[in-house]
């Protein structure tokens, strides 16, 4: 490891612009002649649109156009789709209802877009949007996913009878039933996974620019995957052919999943730009973000775990209803199925598992992947039921887990996944040591003397990153491949540009990706640039989500670097009149091993471009590309331990200690990895303690601003004690597993296990607000 190579704690290259206010986000973009958009949105959760009257709005100052869904349809713009086909257990395809970018006859959630107003200024557009008169016939709404399945419930889409999207299963039901019949102990519980709002700090935004001269569209947008946006807008929404559409995702202020999807707003801005002849910019207000960014989680489940007489787990049975909201967002169908049920084995040998999942429509904001996406829901179920079982069986939660850990790899679970590597004892040991688990009871009694209830809880999570390989996910219904691309351009003076299909919106790719090059060629990181986020610069890519940029994105870079290295060595061997196999690259030089003969990196690069003296038959230049399709998922795993003090008088919970021991495989930049854990854990603690989307019965979102939706703030959180143990991932060249979501996946059950331990009442749902905890203490 050099100062800047793999494993070094290198400060981030991208920070300079962010700390000086020079970052460039979508809302910072200005195009000559640019005008501003505001959307007219439904105030009702469910209603028929009778009439839209734009007269008053059109007469308002600065207004250029008011456009509606019928006009959009007439121009051939397609419906928004879900790109992952799931079949019900009876073999029928999922029941996808139509989602028009601008509603034409029915609105299905509060915030559903009905029209777009384009005006000279943002304020004028907003004024005029208010003046658009939409006459609605309000219908009954259904909000709760369980009631949505009631045949008497309001029907949201004609395509989905009883609001059922699919009824899907995974695993062997007969084997599970047989195991349950023989069980010595069964732990059963109902578990709700609360609905969350992602809340990236940068609100979504789009700037659509139609260039008449070139008949070409440009879209600047807050996207985690600009190429996917271009593909989908082109292939499915008919906005423009791919060669006529450029999508740029500049600096993006956080995503957490919510900026994967292609929303009505960006494609409507593009369409409206052509329609009006002016560039059109839209920036969400925070309440708009609350109403329209895809939400996360929202599962209602029953889980049962069977044990034999020796406390070995024998079977797990799960029944889940997942709320997908009013429409099926881009990857929504995959979240409660292949990203969820496939992780239900957790870290444990469970011979038989069966999960049944029904997804339903409700009159709420669409739900899709949010940091963790399915895996937090699986982890919460498993880790809550295991903890509860330990309490029921009267054994230590650590011992029960350890006894049932998977210890040999590869391990084929009964739910598709084949874990390739791991050492669950190591992370449990590391976490328990860091948490001083052995002396906890002493701390509990000290707290009791102060009148505080102290509790401890753990969670041993496993998750899956870098969904792959493409052929396998295709067979499971994915509409896209999940590979990644990279191109390495060595310039004539030896500086290097890496073009990647991954997209950084906080992950630090400009640093970690450059570390790969510094490590490989010994060139300074300053001479390496990372190019991403622009479909005109990078040919194709799948973007950043599911903790895939390391395991998949960097592997593609490695593959391209391999090719560059091969050619560079050939050139050097030719220049040094040596054998290609004897060339080594060290400290920015290509050397003949064991001699002092060397050619500096830049000289080799110059030779590649002057082409005066290249091996015969070699093409000039030094530029290589690669597509990398992984052979398997990767499986980060670890153990989190949370210690809390509850104030019994107010029910408020203080997290006094939070320990994370993660196995992410090999690590490129520990500083950045730790940052990912901190942020993930904060979101997980947020879910467990603070956050939750609340609707009233009529479908109004009560938590539509920071006045009511509790974002974790600095004083809600402790400093975290994070460390890693390592088993290298055998499925990719770098041996890395991914670290972006683990924190959000592993932490919620640790927090709830700790609080329920403190208050001696296991009946507590998320978010465990002070009022809920107070009530739970009283009913304990």
């Amino acid at each position, binding site marked *: 490891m050099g100062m800047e190579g793999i494993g070094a704690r290198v400060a981030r290259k991208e920070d300079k612009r962010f700390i000086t206010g020079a970052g460039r986000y979508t809302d910072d973009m200005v195009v000559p002649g640019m005008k501003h958009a505001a959307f007219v949105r439904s105030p009702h959760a469910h209603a028929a649109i009778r009439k839209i009257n734009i007269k008053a709005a059109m007469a308002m100052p600065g207004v250029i156009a008011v456009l509606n869904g019928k006009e959009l349809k007439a121009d051939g713009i397609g419906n928004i789709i879900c790109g992952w086909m799931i079949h019900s257990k009876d073999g029928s395809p999922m029941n996808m209802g139509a989602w028009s970018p601008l509603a034409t006859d029915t609105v299905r959630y509060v915030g559903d877009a009905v029209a777009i107003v384009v005006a000279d200024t943002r*304020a004028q557009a907003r*004024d005029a949007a*208010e003046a658009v008169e939409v006459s609605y016939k309000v219908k009954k709404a259904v909000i709760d996913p369980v009631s949505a399945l009631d045949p008497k419930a309001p029907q949201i889409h004609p395509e989905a009878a009883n609001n059922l999207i699919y009824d899907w299963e995974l695993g062997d039901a007969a084997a599970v039933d047989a195991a349950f019949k023989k069980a010595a102990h069964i732990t059963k519980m109902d578990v709700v996974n609360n609905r969350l709002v992602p809340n990236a700090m940068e609100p979504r935004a789009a700037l659509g620019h139609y260039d008449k001269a070139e008949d070409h569209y440009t879209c600047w947008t807050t996207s985690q995957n600009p190429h996917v946006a271009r593909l989908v807008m082109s292939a499915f929404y008919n906005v423009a052919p791919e060669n006529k559409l450029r999508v740029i995702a500049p600096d993006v202020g956080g995503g957490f999943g919510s900026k994967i999807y292609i929303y009505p707003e960006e494609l409507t801005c593009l369409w409206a730009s052509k329609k009006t002849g002016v560039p059109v910019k839209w920036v969400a207000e925070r*309440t708009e973000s609350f109403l329209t960014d895809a939400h996360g989680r929202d599962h209602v489940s029953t889980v049962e775990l069977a044990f034999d007489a020796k406390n070995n787990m024998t079977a797990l049975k799960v029944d889940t209803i997942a709320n997908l909201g009013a429409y099926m967002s881009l990857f929504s169908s995959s979240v409660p199925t292949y990203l969820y049920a496939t992780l239900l084995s957790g870290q444990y040998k469970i011979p038989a598992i069966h999960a049944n999942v029904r997804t339903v429509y409700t009159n709420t904001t669409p739900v899709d992947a949010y940091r963790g996406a399915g895996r937090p829901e699986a982890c919460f179920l498993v880790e809550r039921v295991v903890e509860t079982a330990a309490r029921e069986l009267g054994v230590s939660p650590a011992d029960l887990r350890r006894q049932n850990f998977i210890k040999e790899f590869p391990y084929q679970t009964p739910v598709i996944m084949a874990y390739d590597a791991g050492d669950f004892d190591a992370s449990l040991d590391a976490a328990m040591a860091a948490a001083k688990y052995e002396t906890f009871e002493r701390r509990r009694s000290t707290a009791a003397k102060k009148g505080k209830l102290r509790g401890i809880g753990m969670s041993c999570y496993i998750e899956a990153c870098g969904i792959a390989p493409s052929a396998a996910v295709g067979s499971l219904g994915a509409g896209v491949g999940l590979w990644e691309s990279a191109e390495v351009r060595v310039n004539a003076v030896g500086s290097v540009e890496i073009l990647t299909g991954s997209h950084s919106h906080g992950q630090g790719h400009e640093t970690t990706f450059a570390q790969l090059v510094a490590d490989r060629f010994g060139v300074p990181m300053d001479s390496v640039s990372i190019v991403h986020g622009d479909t005109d610069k990078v040919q194709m890519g799948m973007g950043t989500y599911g903790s895939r940029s390391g395991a998949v994105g960097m592997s593609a870079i490695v593959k391209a670097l391999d090719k560059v290295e091969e050619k560079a060595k050939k050139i050097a061997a030719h220049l040094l009149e040596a054998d290609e196999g004897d060339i080594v690259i060290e400290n920015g030089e290509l050397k003949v091993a064991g001699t002092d003969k060397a050619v500096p990196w830049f000289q080799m690069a110059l030779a590649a471009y002057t082409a005066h003296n290249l091996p015969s038959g070699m093409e000039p230049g030094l530029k290589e590309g690669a597509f990398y399709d992984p052979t398997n998922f990767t499986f980060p795993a670890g153990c989190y331990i949370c210690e809390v003090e509850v104030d019994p*008088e*107010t*029910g*408020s919970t203080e997290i006094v200690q939070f320990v994370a021991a993660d196995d992410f495989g090999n690590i490129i930049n520990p500083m950045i990895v730790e940052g990912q854990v901190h942020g993930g854990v904060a979101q997980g603690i947020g879910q467990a303690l*603070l956050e939750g989307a*609340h609707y009233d019965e009529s479908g109004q979102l*009560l*938590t539509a*601003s*920071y*006045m*009511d*939706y*509790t*974002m974790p703030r600095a004083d*809600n959180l402790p400093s975290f004690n994070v460390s890693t143990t390592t088993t290298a991932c055998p499925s990719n060249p770098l041996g890395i597993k991914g670290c972006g979501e683990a924190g959000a996946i592993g932490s919620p059950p640790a927090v709830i296990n700790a609080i329920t331990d403190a208050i001696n009442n296991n009946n507590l749902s998320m978010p465990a*607000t*002070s*009022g809920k905890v*107070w*009530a739970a203490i009283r009913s304990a």
Partner: protein
Amino acid sequence: MYEVTYHRASSVSEAVKLAKAGEDSKFLAGGMTLIPAMKTRLAAPSDVVDLRHVKEIRGIKVSGKKVTIGAGTTHADVAGNAKLVRVCPAICKLASSIGDPHVRHMGTIGGSIANNDPAADYPAAMLALDATIITNKRAISAARFFKGLFETTLKDGEIIKEVQFTAPAKCGYAKFPNPASRYAMTGVFVAKGKEVRVAVTGAGDDGVFRAKALEKALERKFDASALDGVSVSASNMMSDIHASAEYRANLVVVMAKRAVAAANA
């Protein structure tokens, strides 16, 4: 925000004149409540009259136990006033718990009182301290000044100039903030002067109120233990997604105990 016309006043009389000229004018003190309300279009004044440059309503005077706080004094200035903290530390502590540091640099005591948000902190202090609110027209006792949710006895063209109170022998404030907004979910100000006064904000369904049962118990013995076993009825408490009425009723007693403990510390 809807269109609005901005005016800047340099004196109270000029402010009144400017406000009168507008169709539906509002005084703009720190703006920490009014501007967010205008941004979300919940408030739509035709004119705003900026009071931030009216020097005569700024500043804190402490003479003996008599305290005068200019209406335009920011929360940060109240929180950090060395003279005030000697005679009435609880009000400084209260001010330091309002909003966040940036809000405290702008928000003012006059603006907070005039708005009478049922979850604002100052109304509890004014009521418990038996403060007098001095306007350009009259002096109003806090007990008469606050009327229900967001309502006061202020009339059109009436500007709060200052608040006055006599620092009690002991006082304390304890607040349980709403986890999201950080406004008081329950805030209790306890003052022990000639009598004991306990004022509660954030919890009642009709705004700030005095908790008479707690006052009675504390009259007997001004100690947190005097409130053991005392409860307040949940029937007049607010209930929302953050806290049930029962929970708020509990918080009233718990915060009162903590306020008393702070007062005695």
